[in-house]
């Protein structure tokens, strides 16, 4: 992967500047990240179904990095004009790669809940960061190694033992830069024993015609009996590339819900690595992709059952228009000794246009006999009979298509456990399918933003 060399050189040339702005704990990880990245640079890129999602090509353009920590002006109001009622969130914003807490955020956070920059967390609560940071991503992929090498700051969410947070924490990541930019983003979520929290992660980009690349790594730790729900919504412009990795460990009796929606963007490659470590844990993963133009969206899941009697459910749906490309890779691994495992994985894809392409690889790797595992994948077009039925009743073809596609997506939307977020997602899906420009108009975060 020759394209990684430019980042190695950039790091070597600017090492002092990069490290000056980062916490010691983060800097301590760089030598290992450098070694890993150098090794990846010598290897061929892992094979992907589409050229567009090859890591070598994704990292090839000459992006700028904000290693000098310049503060970019951003028109937050343009991104958030919200009128969906019944939702109020605890808002934090990441502009490019810089964390900007809302003025009222800290005041509104209940006791036992902390949302802060990773640098501050490392300084004030090293015990929250030290044992966790990089422990899951572990520089095992080019993206993880690159992220650890160039990381300067990120966001830390910590929920103390037994604290149950009602309001969702919303972290909005926005790209805004006059020149091509690579943002190295990091989110660390630690939910202690018995804690409960919901996170809403929104990805946006402002302006058009400027290439952005988001290299994001999220690490989630759900302690025994904890409940963590993470909802991600990506609404970016066609020049934005997102490469993200989400790593999660789920302890005894804990529950993790991950839901990711790709509504617009350029190329989006999302890797999920979830391990059910404890007994009686549960993970629900779901995602929807509505792709048009030449968009390309990939979701790759590795879900490992390690504890006993764990349950996992996966549901990923794609509706692809125009020349959009979709990729789904889902692997369920059941370790030896993970008895009583109950795992299901579902992938359904709708190809609406001639140019649309789908590549699906649902996989099972099972080393234990006391299991119930199943997966299903189906790809097809809209049911001609259903379309005919609707047209007979006076519904125009386009509208009928939209309604059927919306119905097709409804179970992923329904998988969202928190009603206000579910309503919002349904609204966004409706608008996206209705052909309206995907934007955060009607984003429900305005309430919080206005309260700042």
């Amino acid at each position: 992967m020759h394209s990684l060399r430019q980042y190695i050189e950039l790091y070597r040339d600017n090492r002092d500047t990069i490290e000056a702005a980062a916490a010691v704990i983060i800097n301590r990880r760089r030598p290992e990240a450098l070694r890993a990245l150098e090794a990846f640079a010598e290897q061929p890129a892992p094979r992907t179904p589409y050229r567009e999602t090859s890591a070598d090509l994704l990292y090839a353009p000459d992006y700028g990095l904000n290693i000098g920590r310049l503060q970019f002006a951003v028109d937050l109001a343009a991104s958030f004009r919200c009128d969906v009622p019944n939702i109020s969130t605890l808002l934090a914003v990441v502009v490019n790669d810089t964390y900007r807490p809302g003025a009222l955020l800290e005041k509104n956070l209940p006791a036992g809940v902390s949302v802060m920059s990773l640098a501050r967390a490392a300084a004030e609560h090293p015990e929250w960061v030290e044992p966790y940071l990089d422990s899951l991503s572990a520089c095992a992929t080019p993206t993880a190694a690159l992220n650890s090498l160039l990381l300067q700051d990120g966001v830390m969410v910590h929920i103390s033992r037994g604290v149950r947070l009602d309001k969702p924490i919303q972290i909005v990541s926005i790209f805004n830069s006059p020149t091509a930019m690579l943002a190295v983003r990091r989110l660390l979520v630690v939910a202690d024993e018995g804690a409960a929290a919901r996170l809403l992660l929104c990805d946006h980009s402002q302006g058009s015609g400027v290439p952005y690349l988001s290299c994001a790594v999220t690490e989630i730790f759900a302690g025994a009996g904890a409940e963590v729900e993470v909802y991600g919504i990506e609404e970016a412009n066609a020049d934005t590339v997102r490469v993200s990795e989400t790593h999660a460990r789920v302890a005894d009796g804990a529950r993790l819900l991950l839901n990711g929606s790709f509504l617009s963007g350029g190329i989006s490659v999302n890797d999920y690595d979830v391990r059910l470590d404890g007994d009686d844990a549960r993970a629900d993963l779901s995602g929807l992709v509505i792709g048009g133009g030449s968009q390309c969206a990939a979701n790759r899941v590795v879900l490992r059952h390690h504890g006993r009697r764990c349950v996992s459910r996966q549901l990923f749906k794609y509706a692809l228009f125009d020349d959009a490309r979709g990729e789904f890779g889902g692997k369920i691994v059941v370790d030896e000794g993970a008895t009583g495992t109950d795992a299901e994985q579902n992938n359904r894809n709708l190809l609406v246009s001639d140019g649309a392409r789908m590549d699906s690889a649902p996989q099972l790797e099972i080393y234990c006999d006391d299991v119930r595992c199943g997966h299903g994948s189906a790809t097809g077009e809209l049911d001609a009979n259903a379309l005919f039925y609707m047209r007979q009743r006076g519904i125009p073809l386009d509208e009928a298509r939209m309604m059927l596609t919306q119905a097709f997506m409804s179970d992923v939307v329904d998988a969202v456990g928190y009603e206000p977020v579910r309503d919002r997602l349904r609204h966004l899906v409706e608008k996206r399918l209705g052909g309206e420009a995907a934007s955060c108009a009607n984003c429900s975060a305005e309430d919080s933003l206005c309260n700042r």
Partner: protein
Amino acid sequence: MSDKETAGTRANDGQTLADATTGDYKYGFSTDVDTDVIPAGLNEDVIRLISKKKGEPQWLLDFRLEAYRYWLTLKPPTWAHLDIPPIDYQAISYYAAPLPRKAPGSLDEVDPEVLDTFNRLGIPLQEQKALAGMAVDAVMDSVSVRTTHREKLAEMGIIFCSFSEAVKDYPDLVRKYLGKVVGYRDNFYAALNSAVFSDGSFVYIPRGVRCPMELSTYFRINSAGTGQFERTLIVADADAYVSYLEGCTAPMRDENQLHAAIVEIIAEDRAEVKYSTVQNWYAGDAEGRGGVYNFVTKRGLCRGDYSKLSWTQVETGSAITWKYPSCVLAGEGAVGEFYSVAVTRNRQQADTGTKMIHLGNNTRSTIVSKGISAGSSQNSYRGLVRVAPSASGCRNYTQCDSLLLSDHCGAHTFPEIKIGNPTAVVEHEATTSKISEQQIFYCNQRGIPTEEAVGLIVNGYAREVMNKLPMEFAVEAQKLLAVTLEGSVG
């Protein structure tokens, strides 16, 4: 003609064939048939020698040499979910021709355990013949010993002979089709086979002819330290039909044996080919010592419109299986089918599945794969369904189920689905589970011992595939399943 009469006819066909096909030879031991073996090692001279011994034309030697030179540039594939010990390709003898005049070994040489197994399988020594209605081209090691029924088939214009004979008698046909479906550049083992293939079967069914009997070849490995590199080529011309059976058994040996075969099938307009395999090579002992490495490339090209190719396989043997019988559905409305039961036990490893490549409009494919893992074995299904952008109206249905019979075996599913046309409808389903205690309890309650209950349940589980086998194979295969799994559950 009754089975007995058929057996009688065949017994008269020649002592050599009888020697090669009698049941007591068939299973799991080595006979002292003399063989003409080339010393171990592989280089261009060895290939020239193989070609010379077989009296091949220059174009075939050139084909072999090109393949060999290409093979030298390749490395063995590592993507399969298999742990393959390094193979020393220079330690293998690439040619072994039996000298058929010598008498075969007696029953006394047979491992009593093996005999017992086959008695329980219910296959008396003579039944092999009685199971006829098939024409048998017995391939012992690498050279076809004798082909039966050839004259009868020839009356209908059907060519069924060993590959070497085909090269001599029908060079134009062989040259026209050889390597057209599986080229020597296909993969490592295909290149190796193309360089050193020693013999195999050649079948040509002319236009409009329905082959009146099941064609069958028994492959077996006999000589110590010789790999077997068979090459089968089946061509069904327009409106033709043929059902082909391939059965494999191998003598018990301690050292590993390599088997890298190629099967190429071509179906023209409205032709139908049914290819059934029961693979029961020696799988090694309980500790994983010995056993056959079975690295096979099988592919059919449904070139004609509305042509059909159906693969059915029951895989119970081999220490390592690497095998993906595939269909390239190029003709309009072509149909591909793949039905498979793969059983692994002890330390066996199997990575098997299929590829369905939809290139023609309105092509259809069905995949039904049943994996059964026991002991410390690893059993993987690997499949590809690809619909080309230009192929509209394609349909695929895939079902792959896995049954786990022990807590330290592995059952894996690696399908890949690549859809390039929006009119395609492709469905994939897979489940993995163990035999439920309720099922066993239900059988136990009704006086059926657990071992037998497992046999019953497994046969029920695999029935969908077994039903696709020709009758002659289905009976044997069903018993084979039950016997294979004896002692695997507890």
